[in-house]
């Protein structure tokens, strides 16, 4: 159900003010040298000078959160024993992600397939968050969304799509959640602008030619270890790619304790770190960097697609732009896709 509306640029601040009444609004903002997703301050305008450094993943899938707290309660009758009380909190406030890009929104659909039916923390926040995506009218270095079944104006994962048509935004409401968030915001009828919007979108999509064919389908059966050793040689194992990625979701669980209480925390982790799979005995199934590199590529382009039908990569290009060693996962996949 695509309801079309129009928002004149002069009414942008009014629009955001109305949204702020519905939930916490997050948008890409200038933060020092970087553009990062964070709470929009009152009267602040999102920064659209360039791509946001990290994905808005952290808004729904918190980087660190308490799974539950535990309290030790001593029984005066038996002071050397303590009972334990566990408390889990999954409640989350409503939130709105504003001006993310289609690759960011699609990232959530990738994580949804794994987390939505299993993880109450993710589910609650996902249900309470409305995603208002701004389609892309320019491509950035490293972008390859059209190579993995996505596109600069794709709707996957979004509740509302905004297309910049110069004097205003063409607004498409894609879901009930989106409609509810826009309720009461002063939008005009969008039909007169649909052609303009369509032209812009077509131009965007044409500009971004795929860098590999086959949608990222690759087979690893005949790939030698030496291939992985070479392609991962300059990798520093820094982990930046995994933290910025809209679809990476590996995590760690650690307990932290004060005097009589503590919490079990879930926090982002990276499969690129050596100690990710290090066992207490000292054995490490992925002790070599090339094994970890292969595991990451395989997870995104082989194992996830085998289960769910599409790669766990939305082609946002962040990992490529920000890799200190300038490694491009798209180049690796292109090479693998090209081989028999």
């Amino acid at each position, binding site marked *: 159900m695509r309801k079309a509306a129009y928002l004149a640029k002069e009414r942008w601040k009014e629009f955001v003010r109305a949204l702020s009444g519905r939930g916490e609004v997050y948008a890409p903002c200038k933060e020092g040298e970087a553009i990062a997703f964070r709470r929009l301050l009152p009267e602040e305008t999102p920064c659209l000078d360039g791509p946001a450094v990290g994905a808005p993943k952290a808004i729904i899938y918190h980087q660190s959160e308490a799974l*539950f707290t535990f309290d030790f309660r001593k029984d005066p009758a038996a002071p050397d024993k303590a009972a334990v009380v566990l408390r889990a909190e999954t409640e989350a406030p409503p939130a709105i992600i504003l001006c993310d890009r289609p690759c960011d929104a699609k990232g959530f659909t990738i994580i949804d397939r794994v987390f939505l*039916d299993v993880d*109450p923390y993710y589910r609650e926040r996902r249900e309470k968050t409305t995603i208002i995506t701004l389609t892309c009218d320019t491509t950035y270095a490293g972008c390859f969304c059209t190579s993995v079944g996505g596109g600069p104006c794709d709707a996957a994962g979004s509740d509302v799509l905004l297309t910049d048509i110069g004097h205003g935004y063409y607004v498409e409401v894609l879901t009930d959640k989106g409609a509810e968030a826009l309720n009461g915001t002063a939008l005009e009828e969008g039909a007169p602008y649909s052609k303009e919007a369509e032209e812009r979108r077509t131009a965007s999509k044409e500009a971004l030619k795929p860098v590999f064919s086959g949608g990222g389908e690759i087979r690893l059966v005949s790939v030698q270890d030496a291939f992985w050793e070479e392609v991962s040689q300059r990798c520093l194992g820094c982990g930046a790619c995994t933290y910025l990625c809209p679809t990476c979701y*590996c995590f760690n669980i650690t*307990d932290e*304790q004060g005097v009589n209480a503590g919490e079990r925390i879930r926090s982002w982790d990276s499969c690129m770190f050596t100690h990710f*799979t290090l066992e*207490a005995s000292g054995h490490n199934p992925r002790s070599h960097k090339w094994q970890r590199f292969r595991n990451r590529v*395989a997870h995104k382009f082989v194992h996830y697609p085998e289960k769910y039908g599409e790669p766990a990569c939305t082609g946002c290009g962040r990992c490529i732009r920000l890799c200190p060693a300038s490694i491009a996962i798209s180049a690796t996949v292109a090479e693998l896709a090209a081989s028999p």
Partner: protein
Amino acid sequence: MAVSNPYLPDLATVVEIVDETPTIKSLKVVLNDREKMAGFTFEPGQVAQLSVFGVGESTFVINSPPTRKDYLQLSVMKAGEVTSAIHELSVGDQVGVRAPLGNWFPYGQMKGKKVLFIGGGIGLAPLRTLILFILDNRADYGDISIIYGARSYADLCYKQDLEDWGRRDDINLILTVDAGSPGPPIREGFVPAVLADAAPGPDDTVAVTCGPPIMIKYVLENLERLGFGDNEIITTLEARMKCGIGLCGRCNIGGSYICKDGPVFALARLKALGFEI
């Protein structure tokens, strides 16, 4: 639609601790929710995540016979932070349990066959679960052979069971210790070498193995050399685990998670996955 919380453990109380070896203890824990305990079911080979609150969680095979409904037994080798904390527990302490997790031994497919168990160290724990199950359903299975080894006599686990099994004439038990270890006279040799020596025939036999990764590697090779088919070789694996439910990306072999799609794997499946253990 509310989703139950798979990260929240059930509270349980430690009711018994037995020292098996200098580094291995067996714990019996009882879920505080009596109804849940009475209704708890699991298959041989499934695992549990045991929590020591404030320290962390670790995965152990549920070692109690599936017919016992009044407790869960887990055998824990002291290796790292969590297992060391478990070794410090005393009777009456509160712990957390998330169970049962993972898959189980394909005991249905094994019916009518002979079973060869090959274990090393704490690796006997999951094998014991299956051995007890088979002994409870003795008529369904053929002869049992067990090759079990550890670093030294003191490190042999479940000594009481070993004694009982050794006395039965429908179990062929071979014990071994690493070369040059102290203790009562037992055959010396590493488990894979002892296996090669014993050279059991593969006909009508399913081999089940568990132990340190390096032992598993050589045992699998030797079993293949002895002519066992890929579907007749079963192993149960472990890895560093956190979520236990196939989400955190840590314990996977290729596209399969040891916690969810394992820990029991037939060699055929491991080969298809094509990645290192």
